[in-house]
């Protein structure tokens, strides 16, 4: 049995290639329409989609089965020539998937099960955009349409079911998660940022997107503090006024390079007195730590260092991984099923040709009978009805068998046997240069 078309995926991702290589091979959005057309021409394939994100560059190709052996070489050649990077530079980072594996891979990519941060939402919109561009470039036919439609449907279903997108998987989001455990409306609480490190900037951005609006930045270097405040949309404070800031800020983020404690138990005790026991959430991401760990014992103080945040993020990643491992078999099953559905148009074609052939024979016999015998109209009608019933009964077995074979994945083989048994004429062949719409 041989399928008449093949699904092929080729690419590299963050798992196989460093960012320095990925950025050389990535396609810009503006280049994609032409690139996908060129890929189709160069690989002589029927359908193609190029997915290019910061984490991956992948081709999804549907081609004639006759081209299967040469597809890999052509697609690799296209990637190298189009981006002007020698094939040897990235050959080892490439991976390939064929048939059901390629479909499963696409489903996992769209559902964010193959993402660097499991369950992130961006990859689905990037996949949608890649599909839209390929569709507009006329490079998508019914097979990739069905494949991507199913991928989007499954991604939505997975998201609705929750799990993979649940749980905070990064340090910044873990800080937000902890803040939300203490404060109900983050927008009502001021945040004091001590220090201007890169990680602090990430946490500030996460807190901002979670609703915090009131930030005060206090650092040793006035210039850096001002730059940080401008970058993050914060107000600039003074480190000398730390005690005063501690009275008003409910969230305190400390991230400096100081080798000693900036916030001691004494600082915090005095601040807590002034706050009348109002809780304070302290995030100390400095290494070495800048907040005395003994402060955690003070009532109303919730102090977390980088390891604690990582523990929360790990918990989130674990939750997502568990959810992902529950979904992977389902996606593999869906991929297999879709491929069977798409591959098995052979039984449909065979059934149509069989019906057409037997109907033609029956009608020819009826015509012959009309000319040779002197039968009246009612008798002819009865004869036609009898032949109809006979045809239906005769073909019931083969047609049912074709349907069953298609369901079980043996459709093409069954179609071949029907063609042989009934001596069916070969199917009309389609010229490769025909537009996809006619397929």
């Amino acid at each position, binding site marked *: 049995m041989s399928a008449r078309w093949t699904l092929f995926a080729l690419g590299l991702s963050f798992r196989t290639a460093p960012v320095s290589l990925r950025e050389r091979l990535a396609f810009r959005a503006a280049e994609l329409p032409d690139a996908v057309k060129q890929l189709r021409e160069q690989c002589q394939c029927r359908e193609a989609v190029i997915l290019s994100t910061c984490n991956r560059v992948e081709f999804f190709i549907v081609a004639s089965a006759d081209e299967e052996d040469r597809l890999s070489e052509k697609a690799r050649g296209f990637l190298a020539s189009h981006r002007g990077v020698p094939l040897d530079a990235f050959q080892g980072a490439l991976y390939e998937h064929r048939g059901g594996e390629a479909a499963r891979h696409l489903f996992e990519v769209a559902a964010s099960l193959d993402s660097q941060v499991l369950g992130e939402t961006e990859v689905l919109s990037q996949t949608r955009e890649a599909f839209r561009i390929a569709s507009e470039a006329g490079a998508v036919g019914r097979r990739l349409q069905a494949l991507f439609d199913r991928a989007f449907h499954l991604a939505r279903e997975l998201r609705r079911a929750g799990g993979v997108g649940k749980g905070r998987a990064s340090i910044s989001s873990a800080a937000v998660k902890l803040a939300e*455990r*203490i404060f*109900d409306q983050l927008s009502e609480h001021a945040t004091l940022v001590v220090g201007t490190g890169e990680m602090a900037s990430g946490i500030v951005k996460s807190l901002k997107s979670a609703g915090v609006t009131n930030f005060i930045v206090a650092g040793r270097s006035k210039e850096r503090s001002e730059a940080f405040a401008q970058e993050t949309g914060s107000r600039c404070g003074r480190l000398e006024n730390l005690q005063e800031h501690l009275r008003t800020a409910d969230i305190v983020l400390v991230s400096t390079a100081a080798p000693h404690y900036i916030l001691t138990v004494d600082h915090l005790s005095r601040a807590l007195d002034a706050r*009348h*026991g109002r809780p304070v959430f302290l995030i100390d991401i400095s290494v070495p730590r800048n907040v005395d760990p003994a402060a955690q014992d003070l*009532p*109303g103080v*919730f102090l977390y260092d980088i390891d604690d945040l990582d523990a*929360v993020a790990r918990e989130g990643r674990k939750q997502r991984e568990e959810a992902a491992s529950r979904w992977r078999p389902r996606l593999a099953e869906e991929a297999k099923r879709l491929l069977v559905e798409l591959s098995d148009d052979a039984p449909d074609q065979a059934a149509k040709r069989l019906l057409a052939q037997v109907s033609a024979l029956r009608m020819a016999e009826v015509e012959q009978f009309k000319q040779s015998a002197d039968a009246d109209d009612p008798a002819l009608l009865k004869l036609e009805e009898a032949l109809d019933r006979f045809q239906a009964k005769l073909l019931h077995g083969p047609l049912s068998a074709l349907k069953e074979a298609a369901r079980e994945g043996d459709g093409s083989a069954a179609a071949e046997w029907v063609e042989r048994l009934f001596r069916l004429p070969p199917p009309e062949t389609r010229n490769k240069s025909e537009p996809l719409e006619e397929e």
Partner: protein
Amino acid sequence: MNPGSLSFVIAAIVAYAIAALLSFISVGRGKTAATWPQLTLAIAAVLSQTVGLGVHCATSTTHYFTSPMEILWLLSWSVGINYVLILAAWRIVGLGVLVLPLNVALLAASIFSRYPGPAPFGALDLHPFYPPHVLLAFLGYGFFLSACAISILYLRAERLLKHKLFGAVFHGIPSLERLERTAGRCVLAGFGFFTLALVLGGYLAHAHGVSSWFLHPKMLAAEITWLVFLTLIVGRATGRLIGRLAAQSVLVGAGLVALTIVLGHPLEVDEDHETPPTGTREQLRP
């Protein structure tokens, strides 16, 4: 308990038990949002209890709400109403873990507790202020007990945060701030109902010639409870009694509420006071 009321109480127990199970599952899975099945079941249970109470009041020939059975029953009803309100307004799913099993226990205990049997109605029962007094007092108790349950959740959540235990239970409890605010609202509402109940109770005692009613053990416990919650409200309003200390104060207040309920037998009328008429409802009704 008559058979008519009993069937409604059993229906309420079943609904509360299923809601409690769902609450445990929600918290165990770290969910904070899927509240509608619990809410529906709690509403059904409260409605069932309300009908049961109606049937009981319509057929009772004794003092209202002086027997342990009736007290437990009314307390559970009040806590149930509070739970429905809190769940609908602030979605504190974790509360069901404490309140719903408590309600199942209260109702089960009410079934098995001894009913004192027929005792004649007193004039007090027929005073128009008596039913609102009882209702307001129990609504106040319900709010205080709900505040107590929320404070337990607060202390638990605070402990988990302090000890950095980031498990499923940690994810199933709302933020400390929400817990504290909700407990504060419950205390405020309970205080309002309780104050009105105290005023009405004082008036009823005075009207029926109970001397030094404010020194009666039940009244003393109620007055101390009132003072504790007043202190808590003032402390919260001035920002001086919040967080862990506030939660612990609510627990103390709830203990006093329990004491008030335990001491809640009717006040005795002075011997030299004109004896109020007693008899059946029909005999006493003007």
